[in-house]
């Protein structure tokens, strides 16, 4: 199967999201470790960014004028690795080496090991700040790139997220867009009961951000919101993407237990079947 050229149509993006979800399951099953739930919830947004919205060049991953992407919820890196591999940053064969010794694909993103990774991540609550730094730098040097940061909803319990929220508004960083992967689950259980973060839109608005809310699995809404974010002037944009943790895999959806657990061989086979069936439904 040949891959459609970028920028992809909505239909092509949907197909690519299926491929990326399958890559995620295969990677984590092969590694026997990793974080499937939050990778699957972010898959549609990451697909839209890499195959339609972002101005990047896989042949030249360190191109200074490129758009930047940060996965602040770094544990979901299988989705990032799958997107980078499918986009041609490195050979897909690397996906089978996730979390193994000498691999370019670490358990959490490492910018010094993986082509296309713009920022190391893993400890939660850093990525939005790093993106803020990149955005300030772009403005200072009059470079036209946009910075995209995916933040987790559980991650939003970190105080440093709100430090960054304040700062991005102070500096009117309209070259910075955050996407909240609002899947309602975290390691120990439900975000809304463990440490509620609501009202999420009101909070980001109160911090001075332009806020949009979308269905994070509706590719049309995802693409529209990301494109719109680039046009918002004078303030940073927060796209609250309502998502389902484990999206596409029947037995993983909305189950906190799949935050950081690998499927066994039978479960992986079932998961791949689910994802493909979902796509054809």
């Amino acid at each position, binding site marked *: 199967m040949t891959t459609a050229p970028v920028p992809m149509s909505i239909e092509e993006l949907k197909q690519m999201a299926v491929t990326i979800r399958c890559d995620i399951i295969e990677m984590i099953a092969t590694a026997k470790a990793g974080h499937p739930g939050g990778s699957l919830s972010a898959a549609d947004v990451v697909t839209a960014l890499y195959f339609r919205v972002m101005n990047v060049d896989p042949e030249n991953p360190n191109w200074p004028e490129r758009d930047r992407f940060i996965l602040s919820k770094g544990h979901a890196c299988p989705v990032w690795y799958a997107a980078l591999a499918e986009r041609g940053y490195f050979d897909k064969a690397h996906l089978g080496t996730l979390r193994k010794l000498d691999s370019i694909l670490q358990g959490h993103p490492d910018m*010094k090991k993986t082509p296309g990774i713009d*920022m190391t991540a893993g400890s939660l609550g*850093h990525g939005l*700040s790093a*993106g803020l730094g990149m955005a*300030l*730098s772009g403005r*200072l040097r009059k470079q036209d790139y946009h910075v995209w940061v995916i933040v987790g909803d559980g991650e939003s319990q970190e105080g440093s997220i709100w430090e960054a929220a304040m700062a991005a508004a102070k500096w009117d960083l309209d070259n910075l867009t955050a996407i909240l992967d609002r899947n309602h689950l975290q390691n120990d259980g439900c975000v809304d009961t463990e440490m509620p973060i609501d009202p999420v839109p009101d909070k980001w608005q109160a911090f001075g951000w332009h806020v949009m809310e979308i269905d994070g699995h509706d590719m049309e809404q995802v693409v529209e919101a990301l494109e719109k974010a680039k046009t918002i002037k004078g303030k940073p944009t927060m796209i609250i993407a309502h998502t389902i943790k484990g999206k596409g895999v029947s037995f993983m959806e909305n189950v906190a237990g799949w935050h950081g657990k690998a499927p066994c061989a039978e479960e992986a086979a079932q998961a791949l079947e689910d994802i493909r069936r979902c796509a054809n439904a």
Partner: protein
Amino acid sequence: MPKTENSHYHHVRPEVIPLLASGELFTAAECQATRYAYAEAILELGKRNPDVVVLDADVSKSVRTTEFAKTFPDRSFNFGIAEQNMMAAAAGMATTGLIPFATTYAVFASMRALDQVRNSIHYPHLNVKIAASHGGITPGPDGPTHQGQEDLSILRSIAGSTVVAAADPPTTRLAVWAAAEYEGPVYLSFTRDPVPVIFDMDYPFEIGKAVTVRDGSDATIFAIRDMVSQSLVAAERLAAKGWHVRVVDCHTLKPLDTEAILQAAEETGAIVTAESNIILGGLGSAVAEVLVENHPVPMKRIGMRDSFAESGPYLEIVKKYGMSAEHIARAVEDVIARKHP
């Protein structure tokens, strides 16, 4: 005033030498907090290098980076009281080729924002300079919450870190400029309280290269940051008793100048370390590790013992908590005595 080239001092300003012997160093010498020397150095650096940017966390008036902000408003970023955000933002800036100097106090740089400092700056080895005032017990009157007595130990334990704490204002300027030339993270620890201006600008500052500032053959004092001046006074006290004590300004805690340590062990046979850092994991520990593995000699560590200090004038804290020239001199006599049991 005669030139010092024939004396046993190196790079020490000639007018300072008589004050070392008379004990008037801390009362009669010109003094300045090294945080201000940083502010002056960064201003000059900003003129030379357009990639240099200064980040502050509500301490720009305290450190005087306000001058940089006035001169380069586009390249100055005040993050408010939010050190974690500042450190990770500095990391993001460094990925684009800027050289951020993230400025705060040592307690906040080394503890509050340590996760960012470790994971977002050091792990990817980004070119961020961490400029930390109030190192050691130098913010005397502020008390323990603001006395960064662990900063050197903490930063030293991070893989790939470079940890620098210059002794006085001129060498602080040199350290800031050297840090800017170095590719990778550098932690710079400054004093909040004034310290004597000891060295000439001909001081050969090189990251990782300790400098012998006083010759001697009976013992060696390795000192860092504000303890270099105390050590020079201690050496003069010992000279009055007939001991020739070498003093080495070990401004770079990491990478440590092991060659200078082993040479001192071989040539002088006894070593004392002096730091206003806690003695756990700082200069004393680092020097001890080198000696134990290679060339054990009698050794003693001067520094904050396993306790917090208290509010008080800086020099009085130094005395009360056992880090004064007199304490250092006693430690030296002790190690010399142990050389010849």
